[in-house]
């Protein structure tokens, strides 16, 4: 099923959670809503589920307006951030709940419920834990029970609120991979909310980046990472080095750096900033042109990538990532003056 979010706005008292948000989720897609806390992503997810109603705008399921549809009638599966499992019920009863509360005419028989729940528990690899209570499970197990419970009602859309937020790093990694495989298997239209850019980049078919109630960018992981639409997206998706300066006459003059900027050909000068990721900077002993000198402060050698921190002449910090081989060949010493040159730099006008 496709989801169409059209011009949705929502306020809570004086706080504006969403301002005119629009985007689309295509059938079978796995979309991440990514943004810092308080950006409105969870509110948007709750509006899609029907747990909140928008002040303006509409939510369409398969082209039909579902804004007025009640939460129970929307056929959505919702996995809550803290799972919200029914504490007084066993794992089995938790998963069976959605089937047991159906109106008598549509309610499956006990036999059918047992088969269905057992199948679902097998799907999430927890069939041997059916008679346990949620308090007896680990975080990752609870997460999967919540998922099985959501899938039991055969939803047309799966919504997950910070699905891995409450888990430790290793479990999170494994569950992520598992969820990706599960999604490939069942191909259910899914939207998940996260503040972890790595999670979004790894898991999603498409990422919708939100900030202060607005959509900043909507695109594939490669798109948003390589072609960020705004400084916010650039900043949010990883470490950046920022060079402040101005643009005029088709050139961006960013301190010691100068790059072509044909988009701004007029003579009037405007503030601008250049953004480069740590791996887009390279270091050398000689002046290779269009770069700056900086002193090597620290070098973190753990892993295949060496992370360097340098201070330029204005004592501004530069973060550089180089391949281990390159570092070993260069073999710089702490305190040595090195030439730093950006291989690639993105200029955003209007940024001080």
């Amino acid at each position, binding site marked *: 099923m496709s989801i169409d979010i059209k011009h949705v706005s929502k306020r809570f008292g004086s706080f504006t959670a969403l301002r005119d948000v629009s985007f689309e989720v295509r059938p079978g897609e796995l979309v991440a809503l990514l943004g810092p806390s308080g950006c409105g992503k969870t509110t948007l997810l709750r509006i899609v*589920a*029907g*747990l909140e109603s928008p002040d303006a705008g509409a939510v369409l399921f398969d082209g039909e307006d579902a804004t007025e549809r009640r*939460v*129970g*009638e929307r056929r*959505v*599966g*919702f996995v*809550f951030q*803290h799972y*919200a*499992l*029914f*504490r*007084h*019920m066993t794992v089995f009863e938790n998963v069976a*709940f*959605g089937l047991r*509360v*159906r109106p008598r005419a549509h309610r499956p028989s006990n036999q059918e419920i047992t088969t269905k729940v057992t199948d679902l528990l097998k799907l999430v*690899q927890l069939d*041997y834990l059916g008679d346990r*209570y949620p*308090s*007896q499970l*680990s975080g*990752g*197990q609870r997460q*999967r029970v919540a998922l099985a*419970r*959501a899938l*039991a*009602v055969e939803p047309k859309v799966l919504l997950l609120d910070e699905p891995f937020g409450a888990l430790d790093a290793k*479990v999170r990694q*494994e*569950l992520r991979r*598992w969820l990706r495989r599960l999604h490939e298997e069942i191909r259910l239209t899914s939207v998940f909310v996260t503040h972890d850019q790595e999670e979004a980049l790894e898991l999603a078919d498409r990422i919708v980046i939100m900030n202060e109630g607005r959509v900043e960018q909507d695109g594939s992981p490669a798109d948003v990472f390589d072609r960020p639409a705004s400084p916010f997206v650039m900043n949010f998706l990883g470490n950046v080095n920022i060079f402040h300066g101005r643009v005029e006459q088709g050139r961006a003059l960013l301190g010691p750096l100068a790059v072509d900027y044909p988009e701004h050909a007029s003579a009037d000068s405007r503030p601008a900033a250049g953004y480069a990721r740590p791996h887009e900077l390279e270091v050398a002993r000689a002046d290779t042109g269009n770069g700056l000198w900086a002193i090597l402060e620290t070098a973190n050698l753990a892993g295949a990538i060496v992370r360097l921190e340098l201070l330029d002449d204005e004592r501004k910090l530069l973060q550089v990532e180089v391949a281990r081989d390159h570092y070993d060949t260069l073999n710089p010493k702490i305190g040595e003056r090195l030439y730093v040159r950006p291989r690639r730099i993105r200029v955003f006008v209007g940024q001080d």
Partner: protein
Amino acid sequence: MAHVDTGRARDPKKGLTEPLLVRWGLTVVALAFLTIFLLVPLAAVFTEAFRRGWDAYASAVSEPDAVAAMKLTLLAAAIAVPANLVFGVCAAWAIGKFQFRGKQVLTTLIDLPFAVSPVISGMVFVLLFGRQGFLGTWLADHDMRIVFAVPGIVLATIFVSFPFVAREIIPVMEATGSQEEEAARVLGASGLQTFFRVTLPSIKWGLLYGVILCNARAMGEFGAVSVVSGHIRGLTNTLPLHVEILYNEYQFQAAFAVASLLAFLAIVTLVLKTIVEYRTRRSMDRQPAVVPAFRAADI
């Protein structure tokens, strides 16, 4: 520099606990206090009640006025407890699950019966519904009696016992939040299904605890009921009021016999309360003693 002796094994809790003498002293004081103010009076009630033997006891509690008082007490409790149960759940639901203006005021108002003297509570009803009261004339015109009649007693009982249920379940409702209810709604449960299958099971022990306390107060209330009752024997006397009348008439044995019924109720209440507390604690940590090792497939 101070010399630090590291060689001697030290009590790890030393410095955190009081000296033995203080511990024993406090325990003795507490026990002595309990004995003098609780156990001795309780024993006295039963001794006095049975002073003239079982027959006298039986006739005192089966005497028509005593039976009428008993019936009235049970009737008042039978109305007050369900009424307060419904009110308590509604109030706790509103306070625990919603955000609204005046929430703090509502929370404070629930405690009002604890704060005012029961006599004042009774007076309020007399002022409202009495012959000279605000609604007195209207009630008289329509041939209705509230004060000095059963309805007044029921009203006063409801008033003094209403905080118990609400106060017990508000913290439970606040602690559980509304996510489980939301989950139930998303899964297609109706409002009633959500309440009976999700909300009620999570508050049941708190609710039972509140009902037990509420019932004890409803049956034992003296002050407020005394003001609105009018002390009409066989008609508007509850058990506590009947005890007072018998005592004032120097029928000590009969007074204590009836009082022993109330004392017995108190003991039953305490036992139930202990059981409920035990069950609550058990259901809170339904955690296995040993967490089984996870299988390879587990995450």
